[in-house]
């Protein structure tokens, strides 16, 4: 299935938005974390600044998020992992509330309790987790619910190639296939799990081949390209909606930044990230849009301006929102 003009433009705009969001975060995150205003002797202080804690950014991995989410409705569930922003943005999670969450503000998705790895937006059925491998079984549950409720909803479990070595992944695949669940497992192969290269962690070249062991289709998307992901995801989502069961998709994608911000990346060959950026999927899709007369320079500028305005507004909202009262720490352990 090929994307319509509208879908192409949507994917392009979302990719631009994700990239701008992540690059802005990379800068904002550094505020307050560098010498001299931190403890003497430190090079960096992870707990300082307006956005403290770990920060995993997805610049370079935009095609996976938009190529899949282009097929989704608000009722379709997405479960992401510790690197969740691109999925969240592509699933139309409220950008202001998501950003406020990372600033730890009371206006955040979780009133500041969750932070960047723990974003929950039930309005668009988005959630994620900092525990590697946790998403696949939970996506099965959302799919099981759709089936029990008689809906044509699907569920997506996103995770990295590193997570595909967790038992949870393998159990989820078996379960999904056994119960013919409308779930799509989407593995982002960005080559690394922190410092460990895929070839040093994974017994098989492509995780897509693992699907055969569970009796479901496995699809390898070999290029970090939104349209290629769109096609693979389109087939999988259609199959799921028809009640024919799960699909596993692996996408070869690129991580432009460190595993987390502040990662010394000494394990990475020098210049690798630079080289990856020469295959940037955003200008590539822009060129396709231009070739089809769907975009010109003026249109691109307008689109980028609108995206910047949204992203800036979200960061301003996060920054300027109030913190929760400290005693709010005691609330919400249980549902009311």
């Amino acid at each position, binding site marked *: 299935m090929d994307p319509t003009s509208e879908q192409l433009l949507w994917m392009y705009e979302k990719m631009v938005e994700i990239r701008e969001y992540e690059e802005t975060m990379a800068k904002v995150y550094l505020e307050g974390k560098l010498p001299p205003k*931190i*403890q003497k*002797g*430190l*090079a*960096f*202080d*992870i*707990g*300082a600044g307006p956005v*403290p*804690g*770990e920060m995993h950014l997805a610049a370079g991995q935009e095609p996976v998020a938009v190529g899949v989410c282009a097929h989704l409705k608000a009722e379709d569930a997405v479960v992401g992992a510790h690197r969740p922003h691109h999925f969240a943005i592509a699933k139309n999670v409220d950008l202001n509330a998501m950003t406020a*969450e990372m600033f*730890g*503000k009371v206006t*955040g998705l*979780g009133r*500041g*309790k*969750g*932070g960047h*790895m*723990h974003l929950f937006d039930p309005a668009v059925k988005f959630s994620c*987790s*900092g*525990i*590697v*491998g946790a998403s696949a079984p939970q996506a099965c549950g959302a799919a099981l619910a759709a089936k029990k409720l008689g809906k044509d909803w699907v569920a997506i479990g996103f995770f990295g190639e*590193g*997570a595909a*070595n*967790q*038992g*949870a992944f393998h159990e989820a695949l078996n379960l999904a296939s056994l119960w013919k669940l409308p779930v799509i497992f989407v593995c982002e192969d960005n080559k690394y*799990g*922190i*410092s*460990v290269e895929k070839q*040093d*962690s*994974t017994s098989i070249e492509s995780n897509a081949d693992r699907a055969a062991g569970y009796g479901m289709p496995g699809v390898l998307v070999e290029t970090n390209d939104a349209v290629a992901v769109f096609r693979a995801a389109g087939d999988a989502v259609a199959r799921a909606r028809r009640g024919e069961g799960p699909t596993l998709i692996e996408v070869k994608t690129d991580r432009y930044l460190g595993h987390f911000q*502040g990662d010394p990346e*000494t*394990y990475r060959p020098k210049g690798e990230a630079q080289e990856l950026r020469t295959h940037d999927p955003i200008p590539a899709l822009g060129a396709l849009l231009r070739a089809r007369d769907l975009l010109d320079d003026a249109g691109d500028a307008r689109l980028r301006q609108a995206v910047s305005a949204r992203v800036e507004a979200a960061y301003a909202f996060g920054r300027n929102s109030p*913190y*929760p*009262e*400290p*005693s*709010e*720490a*005691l609330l919400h*352990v249980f549902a009311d």
Partner: protein
Amino acid sequence: MTTDTKVRTLSMAQAISEAVAQEMERDQRVFVMGEDVGKYGGIFSATTGLLDKFGPERIMDTPISETGFMGAAIGAAAEGLRPISELMFVDFFGVCFDQIYNHLAKNTYMSGGNTKYPVVITTGIGGGYNDAAQHSQCLYGIFAHVPGLKVVVPSNAYDAKGLMTAAIRDDNPVVFMYHKGIMGLSWMSYFEGSTNAVPLEPYTIPFGEAKVVREGRDLTIVTLSQMVQKAVLAADTLAAEGIDVEIIDLRTLVPLDRESVLRSVAKTGRLLVADEDYLSFGVSGEIAAIVAEHLDSVKLKAPIRRLAVPDVPIPFSRPLEQFAIPQVDGIAAAVRELMQLNLN
């Protein structure tokens, strides 16, 4: 310790990796496996430099398969090897606890003492840097609750080296829990009292011996891990106010040095337990119970007080996290309040 022993100032991370390196040199059966322990040197630097020294056969980066490599540690230990198995954050115990509590902890017992499992699990604990609910817990209470696991919770580099050496030489499973905020990392603020003088020569610190970190007359703080460093700072403030606090660093939870707790509380008559784990059903309750069981010999002047995480997951936002995890000021305030209370 001989007088010509070379002593340097080391961070806790350096002390731990030194202990591991020296034991690996001493004993070919010792090896390390875990996520990012090789090229990266351990996310919290507990294995920095070891890959270069010992190579990938003995410093093994694993897939993200905690059940797999924790179970492998058990199997390898049963064959006579001495694995050190790193669980990057203790919070991840959830994906592999079956191997740990149903097997590693119980196999020796279930075999009637006929098998042994000299495994050291190293793991990062604790919050204070806004890493939220899945990356900030202490959870030593859970590990200590399960019979069959020794639990080590050092507060400083000197103790960490001696305890790590003892852990590796122990024939039993040892869970070695290092608080991230006292490792002396270059990218996370830490309590500087944790970086201290460490002899180059290998040495052991026996398990089950608490340390009196500071002697005092008026009140006992029983504590462990990073909270020891917080208690020391609180005690300095309180000393200026004329309150003389004694601090007991438990150092190991299993075995637990009950005598040192009782001796100190018998002397001061006042007990505050300062703990970064959850309040209920945990370490602070255990310490309080030990004192309560000895009220015939220990005369309390005031009720026992416990400071711990108030039974909520660790929140992300800074003001919330500072509220949930006991801080230096909170310890000082609790001590002042306790000094005002009298049982009769």
